Structure formats: C-alpha cells, structure tokens
C-alpha cells in the first residue's frame, strides 16, 4: 500500500456518516482497484463496499452485497479461477470471510493465521501465525476456527481461541498490540467470531452458549489495545440479574460469538447473543420457578443495542425468553433497510424465524417463518414477538423436536440486494429425538460444556432432512422463488449488482443464480464442501469473486451420519481461498 493509498484508506475509514449520493462511486468495475477510483465508498455506505469489502458483513448494513456489475448472467460462462491460496492447517475447514482494501486481500484461517495477499494475483505480501496455548486449544470443542477479521486505523484485527485480540500493521503484518481479554485457561472458550471496527474501537464478542460463563462483549481502543468497556451478556445489568433464579447467572452462558452491525446514524451497535447454559432445561414447563436457571435469563438469545463509545445498553429484544432449545440470536446478520419511511433491521434467529425490528428501539415490526419444520413453538406473534405454544422439555425422552440443535438457520449469513429488494437466505429442515438429563456445571479446573441431554438428529416426520435457498421480501417474508438442496448449504451467500446470487454448497459446488428469477446460471466444482465466507471486489480494474473452501464445522459434522457420502469421506483438515474472474 502506497502512502497515498494509505491516506485515502484512513480518510475513508474516518467516514462514518453516510456518504452523499452525489459522491457515490460508479458501481461498474471501471473505477479500478488499488485506490485509483475517483471516489471511494466507506463501509457505512448502504450500497456496500464498492471495489473493497472492508468488514465481515460487507458493510455496516450487513447486506453481503457488492455493487459491482462486471460479472452478470450474460457473461458468467466466462468466469474462471484466477488464483488459489492454501493457508495450510485448515482444521475444520476455512470458515472465515476474507476482506479486501486497496487491492490487498486479508484473511484468517484456523488458529488465527492471518494472510495478506495481492488481491489480483494471490501473491503473498505477509503472514502472521500467532503462538497459541496448544494445550488449551487441544481441550476446546468449538475450535480452532476463526471466522474473520476487521480492518481500521491501518491495522488488521483478529481474535484468538485463547482469548486474545491482536492488531497487526496492514502493511507489514507486524503486531501493534496483543491484548488478553478472556481467561480462556479457566473458561475454556475464547474468540472465534470476527471483530467489528466502529469509530475508534474494536468490538468483539466471546464464545458462550452452553459454556458456563457470562459471555462478555468487549470494546477495545483500536490505537492502543486498551480495553475500554465490557458488556456481560449474562446479567449485564442489576435488573437483568433478577431474571436468573438461584444465582444461576454465575454460569449462564450467553456470549456474542458472531460480528454484529452498526447503525451510524444513531451510533448504535447491534449484536446478537448466544443461548443460556445448560442448553436444555430439565425444569420443563416449570422453568420460571425451578430448575438450573429459573427465569427469562437476560440477555441470552437476544438482540442488544449498545453504545460503541461506552458499551452501555440502549435497548434490547429477547427473541426467545428462557431459550431451552439452543436457538441463539448470535447467528445472523443485521440487515438494515428502510420501508415506508421507517428505518428497520432484519435479524434471523437460529430457530427458523426472522425478526424485523424498528431501529429506534428494537420494537417488533414483523416476525416471519423461514423454515417449514418448526415445533419448538406453535408460532411467534408477528405483532409482539411473544412465543405462542412453547414446547418445553422436562426430564426424559422427547421425539421429533424441530428444528434440530443445528437450527433452522446456521451462523453463516444471507444476502440482501437493493437492486431486487430481495433477501436471500438458506433454511435447514431437520429434527431430532432427545432425552433431557439433569447435569451440574463443571467449572474446575476448567469449564466444560453443559448440554443437559443426549440427542440424535433425524428426518422430520413425513419428510426428509434437506435445505433450501429462498428469495423473499425481507420485511413480509413473501417468497419470490426457492431452490431446494438435498443437504443444507452451510456457507454465507453473496448478492451482486450484476444481478447474481452466489451459493457455495456443501458438496463443493459454487453455484450462481439469476437474482431475479432464481435460475441457475453457472457452477464450478471446488472439490470440497464450503462452510465459510464469500465476497466480491475489484482490483486493477477487474471484478473478482473470492470464496473460502473447506469442510468440518460442528454443523457439517452431522452430515456424514445423516446424509452419507460425499460427507462421510470429506476431509475436515483442508480448505483454501479460491478467487474467480472473467477470462
């Protein structure tokens, strides 16, 4: 990166207000990469990142959309591999979202190995492999994947599974600071999700869920690495402590293990939180008064709005009060858009419903159902968000709970195209049988998973487990088109200004669809399943698509038994970045 480019980059990062329409760059590929475009976009611009892809969800609005138009349904037949990069040691596959700034592609692999590559050629510029606590990593379940990085103030920020947040110089890869935030040696969990860079802070959420801790989210000074604030997703306020009977907040779980979104206009960070621990609750119907965690268990399985300057809670909505099914709100994007003069945010919940909120206070605008097989509740009131007909699970055996523990949606993101006005999202149809068992949390010498049931995934009654991609109105859920998959795709989606939607599928095919009609227009075999990110960017005047390959996420681990081949023999220690462009 030249000094001029660096200055441009810093200037762009400083733009946290919406860029005036007049200033927005052309969405063709002619603007050129490497900072040569006349006007550059910032990550807070709703149209996405233009030539670049500077934050996990593509932009603060979480659209996973690139406005680039060079590649389109008419010429996509000429889309071919431009370059490939193998990071090595891709344990559990490459699960991360690459980022691009000024013609350089940055990404992290398993064990938080970070690479900077020439975005047009794949030529390595620098790499950084942090030294991790190997004994700790060997004892972790939700490890050693790292799902993404953040860029800002000329640095690359990456979390580690042993509880650190590291800043690297964008030009050299040399560490600027390395801050230990979580006592992972005791709590076992650390960071796997991408950080979010906002103003002068790096925000990152700890793992949690069925891990007995309090799942903190941190605000760290981007310049110095100093921790500025910490918000506890479990009983983070005195009031919320009352929603955890018998001091159960001490081992409540929670966490915020995926990057959230940022509403620059109101200076609000939106973040989703994980489920409470233990995951299943033998109190069954009597969860309000007895069992391992009596009460609503705030702020687990909730969306929370934080002030990025001080970490103070502005407002929240708990999607599933007293979640007894592992249907996190930590999954999913925060799609920000406007409808009828109202500023909205659309957020998918792992249980299979999509929540639409008013951005001013997280009040419910609508709730719609993405997946067919749901019986953990009869419905969710679209006006209030209240759960109707909860299926609580007392001690003992239960059959055909839908969706299964892997959820109606998983943690990878859907996409929204402002051109079609459609929201593209993968749904997962599967169920499970389970036996709820009483457990006690293990905290010494090192915290252990607290599940509280034995379970087995199965086909839904009268159906076969499968997945689907649908294109819908993001506010009403009205379906425009749908494509069925024999097994649910587990990777993120990408929408582009060239009227395309890309789906990296689990068998290893990268597929492209006409964004309007849903017609498949292109596919390419990457030779291994996908469970990571996909982006588009421009470098040296050309548009590129970059996808992470590799298989072996905890959800993907279910596929071998449920679906047989090719999953039974699919490697779980491989993965690469594969980059495409028009020949």
């Amino acid at each position, binding site marked *: 990166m030249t000094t001029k480019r660096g200055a441009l980059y810093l200037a762009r990062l400083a733009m946290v207000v919406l860029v005036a329409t007049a200033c927005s760059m052309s969405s063709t590929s002619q603007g050129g990469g490497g900072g040569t475009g006349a006007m550059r976009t910032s990550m807070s611009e709703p149209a996405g990142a233009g030539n670049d892809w500077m934050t996990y969800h593509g932009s603060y609005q979480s659209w996973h959309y690139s406005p680039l138009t060079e590649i389109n349904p008419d010429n996509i037949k000429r889309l071919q591999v431009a370059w490939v990069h193998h990071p090595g040691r891709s*344990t*559990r596959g490459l699960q991360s979202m690459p980022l691009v700034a000024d013609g350089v592609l940055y990404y992290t692999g398993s064990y938080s190995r970070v690479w900077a590559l020439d975005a047009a050629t794949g030529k390595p510029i620098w790499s950084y492999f942090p030294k991790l606590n190997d*004994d700790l990593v*060997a*004892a*972790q*379940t939700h*490890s*050693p994947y790292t799902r993404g990085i953040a860029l800002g103030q000329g640095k690359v920020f990456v979390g580690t599974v042993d509880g650190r947040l590291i800043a690297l110089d964008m030009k050299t890869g040399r560490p600027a600071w390395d801050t230990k935030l979580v006592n992972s040696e005791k709590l076992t969990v650390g960071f796997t999700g991408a950080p979010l860079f906002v103003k002068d802070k790096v925000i990152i959420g700890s793992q949690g869920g*069925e891990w007995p801790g309090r799942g903190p989210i941190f605000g760290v000074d981007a310049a110095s690495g100093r921790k500025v604030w910490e918000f506890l997703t479990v009983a983070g306020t005195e009031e919320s402590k009352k929603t955890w009977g018998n001091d159960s907040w001490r081992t409540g779980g929670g966490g915020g293990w995926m990057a959230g979104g940022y509403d620059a206009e109101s200076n609000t960070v939106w973040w989703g939180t994980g489920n409470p621990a*233990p995951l299943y609750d033998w109190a069954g119907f009597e969860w309000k008064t007895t069992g391992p965690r009596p009460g609503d268990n705030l702020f687990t399985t909730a969306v929370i709005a934080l002030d990025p300057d001080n970490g103070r809670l502005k407002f929240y909505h708990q999607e599933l009060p007293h979640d007894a099914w592992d249907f996190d709100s930590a999954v999913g994007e925060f799609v920000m858009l406007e409808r009828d003069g109202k500023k909205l945010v659309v957020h998918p919940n792992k249980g299979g419903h999509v929540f639409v909120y008013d951005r001013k206070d997280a009040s419910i605008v609508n709730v719609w159902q993405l997946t067919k097989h749901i019986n953990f509740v009869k419905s969710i009131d679209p006006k209030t968000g209240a759960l109707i007909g909860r299926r609580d699970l007392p001690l003992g055996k239960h059959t055909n709970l839908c969706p299964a523990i892997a959820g109606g949606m998983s943690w990878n993101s859907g996409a929204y195209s402002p051109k079609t006005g459609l929201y593209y999202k993968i749904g997962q149809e599967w169920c499970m*049988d389970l*036996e709820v*068992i*009483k*457990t*006690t*949390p*293990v905290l010494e*010498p*090192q915290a*252990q*998973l*607290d*599940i*509280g*049931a*034995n*379970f*087995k*995934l199965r086909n839904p009654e009268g159906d076969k487990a499968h997945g689907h991609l649908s294109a819908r109105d993001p506010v009403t859920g009205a379906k425009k088109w749908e494509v069925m998959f024999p097994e649910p795709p587990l990777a993120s989606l990408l929408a582009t200004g060239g009227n395309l939607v890309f789906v990296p599928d689990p068998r290893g095919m990268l597929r492209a669809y006409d964004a309007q009609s849903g017609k498949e227009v292109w596919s390419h075999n990457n030779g291994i399943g996908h469970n990571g990110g996909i982006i588009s960017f421009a470098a040296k005047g050309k548009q590129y698509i970059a996808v992470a390959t590799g298989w*072996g996420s*905890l959800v993907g*681990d*279910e596929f*071998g*038994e449920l679906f047989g081949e090719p999953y039974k023999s699919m490697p*779980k*220690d491989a993965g690469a970045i594969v980059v495409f462009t028009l020949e």
Partner: protein
Amino acid sequence: MIRILALTVALSLGPAVAWAQDRAAEAAQIFASTCGFCHQDGGRAAGRGPKLAGTDRPDDYLLNRIRVGKEGAMPAFGRAFSEAQLRALVVYIRSLKDDAR
C-alpha cells in the same frame, strides 16, 4: 463360619455397590453434559462423533483417547476430569447396549 464370611462379604459389597452406582450415575451425567454433544443418543448412535456402543477398542485405547483427544475432532479431557471419572466414563461406554441402530 460360612455364615460369618457371607455376612462379611455382603457388608463390604454394600458400600461397593453403592459407590459403583454413584460412579455410573456421575458418568452418565458427564456424558450428557459434555460427550453427548458429539456422540449421539448417549453414545448409542453415530453423529458428529462415532458410535461408542459395542466398540471393539480396548479400555486403554478409550482412556487415552478421552485424555488426549484427537486434533480437530475431539477435545482432550485429561485435565478436566479425574482419573476415577475417566475410568467411570469407560465403564459407562462398556455398559451401552449395542442394538445396531
């Protein structure tokens, strides 16, 4: 004499049986809180991890695998659980009925 011997055996077996029962219950609980996340249906069926019921692996192999894990596939529990708990888990695995599901 025989009667006294029988009584002695019964007296000493009593606590032993109770101790073994406690251990078995504890192992089942540890399994449901931690191991069952991957070894499904309490270890009776394959899922994320292999089925354990009816395994032909020797005890020492099972003990070692639980202790040190397998990179990228199974965590190491050597630090998490006591030797008695680890052995109780092996007894639990051996007790699982293999109904070929």
